[in-house]
C-alpha cells in the first residue's frame, strides 16, 4: 500500500514544518534552560552565572511548592469531576429515549461556553454572576433568605468558584468525546445484553465502560494536560488571590517574570513546569496502559 519514495521528495514535504517547530518550540525551551542558570534580572545590567541556584531556591520556596501542589490537585479534581459529569450527560444524550434531533441540538448548544474566549466567560462570571453586590449568585442567595456571598474571599471560596466555572467551560469537550465513543458501540451488543436480562448498571459496567475506556483515556489526558496549563480563567477571576491561595504554576511563572522581573528564576520555574507536565502525562499514560493489559 504505502510505497517508498525518493528521500529528497519526502523531506521536501516535511522539513519546512520541522524547521519551524524547532525554531518556535525547541529553541525557546533550550534558551529557557540556558537563562535559568543566570541571575537574570530585567532591571539590572549584569546577569551573573549562578549555576543551579535558581532551581535550588525554587524547591525551597513555599510559594512555588504551593503553586505546584495547587496546579496538580486542581487539575486532578477538575478533570475527574468533568469526566463523571461528562459521562452522565453523554449517556443521556445517547439514550434512545431522547429524540435524535433534540440530542443533536443540545450537543450544538453546549459548545458555546467551550468555544467562546475564556477571557469573556471569566469576565461574565466575575461580574454578572459572582459579583457580591450585583451578581446573580448573591441575588439568588438573598432570594432564598441567605446572606450574599463574596466568592473572592476566604481560602476555599475562590478555588471552588474557579472550579465551578472551569467545569462549566470544559465539560462539553468531555461530553462530545464520550458521546462519539458511545456511538461506536454496536447496537446488537446492547440488544443482546438486554435479551440476556442485563440491567442498566450491568450494561454500564460490562459493556459500556470497557468499550469506552480508550476514549475516556483520551478525554482524561487532553483535559488534564490543559487543566495543568490553565491561565486565562485564573488570571481574570482571582489573579492568584487572595494572597497566593489560587496561584497555579502558570501564574507563578508569570508573576516571577513580569511582576518581579526575575527572568532567570521564572525560566527555571518554567522549565520545571514543563518537566512536571511531561512527567505527569507520561506517568498517567503508563498507568492506563498497564491497567489495559492487566
Amino acid at each position, binding site marked *: 500500500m504505502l510505497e517508498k519514495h525518493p528521500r529528497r521528495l519526502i523531506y521536501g514535504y516535511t522539513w519546512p*514544518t520541522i524547521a519551524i517547530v524547532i525554531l518556535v518550540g525547541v529553541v*525557546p525551551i533550550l534558551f529557557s534552560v540556558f537563562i535559568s542558570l543566570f541571575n537574570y534580572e530585567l532591571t539590572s545590567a549584569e546577569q551573573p552565572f549562578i549555576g543551579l541556584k535558581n532551581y535550588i531556591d525554587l524547591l525551597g520556596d513555599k510559594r512555588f511548592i504551593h503553586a505546584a501542589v495547587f496546579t496538580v490537585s486542581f487539575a486532578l479534581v477538575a478533570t475527574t469531576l468533568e469526566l463523571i459529569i461528562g459521562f452522565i450527560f453523554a449517556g443521556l444524550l445517547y439514550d434512545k429515549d431522547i429524540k435524535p434531533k433534540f*440530542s443533536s*441540538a*443540545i450537543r450544538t448548544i453546549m459548545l458555546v461556553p467551550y468555544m467562546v474566549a475564556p*477571557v469573556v466567560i471569566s469576565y461574565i462570571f466575575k461580574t454578572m454572576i459572582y459579583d457580591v453586590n450585583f451578581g446573580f449568585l448573591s*441575588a439568588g442567595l438573598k432570594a432564598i433568605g441567605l446572606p450574599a456571598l463574596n466568592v473572592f474571599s476566604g481560602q476555599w471560596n475562590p478555588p471552588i468558584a474557579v472550579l465551578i466555572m472551569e467545569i462549566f467551560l470544559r465539560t462539553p469537550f468531555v461530553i462530545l468525546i464520550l458521546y462519539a465513543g458511545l456511538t461506536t458501540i454496536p447496537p446488537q451488543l446492547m440488544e443482546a445484553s438486554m435479551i440476556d436480562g442485563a440491567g442498566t448498571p450491568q450494561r454500564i459496567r460490562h459493556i459500556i465502560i470497557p468499550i469506552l475506556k480508550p476514549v475516556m483515556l483520551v478525554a482524561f489526558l487532553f483535559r488534564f*494536560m490543559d487543566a495543568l496549563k490553565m491561565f486565562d480563567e485564573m488570571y481574570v477571576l482571582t489573579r492568584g488571590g487572595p494572597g497566593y491561595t489560587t496561584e497555579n504554576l502558570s501564574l507563578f511563572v508569570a508573576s516571577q*517574570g513580569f511582576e518581579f522581573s526575575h527572568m532567570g528564576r521564572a525560566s527555571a520555574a518554567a522549565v520545571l513546569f514543563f518537566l512536571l507536565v511531561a512527567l505527569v502525562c507520561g506517568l498517567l499514560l503508563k498507568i492506563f496502559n498497564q491497567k489495559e493489559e492487566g
Partner: protein
Amino acid sequence: MKRTGKTIVRSLKHGILGLYGLFSLFPLLLIVLTSLKKKKDALSNPPTFIFKPTLENYTGDVFNMDVLHAILNSLIIALAATTIAILLGIFCSYALSRLRYKGKTLTQGVILSLRLIPPISLVIPYFIIFSKLDMLDRYPSMILMYLTICLPLIVWMMKSFYDETPVELDEAAKIDGCTQFQTLRHVLLPAIAPGIFASAALTFIVMWNDFMFALYITGSHTRTLPVEIYNSIGYYALDWGKMSAMAVVAIIPAILFIAVAQKYIVKGLTMGAVKG
C-alpha cells in the same frame, strides 16, 4: 401504569438535557442582554430581565479607534498564523499519512510534544528573545509564537483527514499517470477540502481567543481583542453594558464556527484521536 412511568422518565430526561442547554446559553444570553441595557438597568438589584433595550453601547464611544484597532490586530494575526500553518500542514500531514520513511515517528513525536509545553514556559524565553531583537509588539513575533499552538493542531487534524481518504484514490490517479504532486493537488486536496476548512476555522478560533501570549508580547501596536477587553474591565468598572458590547463582538467568530463546522470539533480538539 408502566407506560405513564416511562413517559415520566422520558420527559425527565428531556427536561434535564433542556436545562443543561439553557444553562450553557445563560452566559451568552447575559452579555447579549446586558449589552442592550442602560447603565442603571445593567446594575439593577436584583438583576432584571425586563428593561427598555437600547443600542447606545454599540456606538463609537465603546468601539473607538483602540477597540477597532484591536479587532483588526486579532484578525490579522490569527489569519496569518492560520494560513501559514495550513500551507505547511498540507504537505507535512500528507507525508505523515501517506509516505513511509525513516524518522517519521520522530517527526510526529516532536510536533506532538509542542502540545505538552505549557504556554507560559514559552512566553518567558520569547519575551527575552524578542526584547533583545527589538521585536516585541510586532506582528511577525506574534505570528511566530502562535505557530507553536497552530502547527500541532493543524498537522494532526489534517493527517486524520488524509487517513480517512482511501488510498485507492491515490492508486487510481497514479494509474492515470499523475505524479505524486499532481495526485496531491488534483485528487487529495479536493477530497479533504472540507477538512482543511474545518482545521483552519478551528485554529482561527483558538488564536482569536488566545489571551496569554497576547498579554505579554503585544503592546499598543499589536494588542488583540481579548487583551483590550481585559484592560477595559478596570476602565469601565461597573459599566457592564459597554463591556458586554465588546464581549459580544469577541464571541461572534466562535458562534459562526459552531454553526458551520460543529461536526469537526471533536476530531479537531483531540487532534484526530477521536472521530466525531
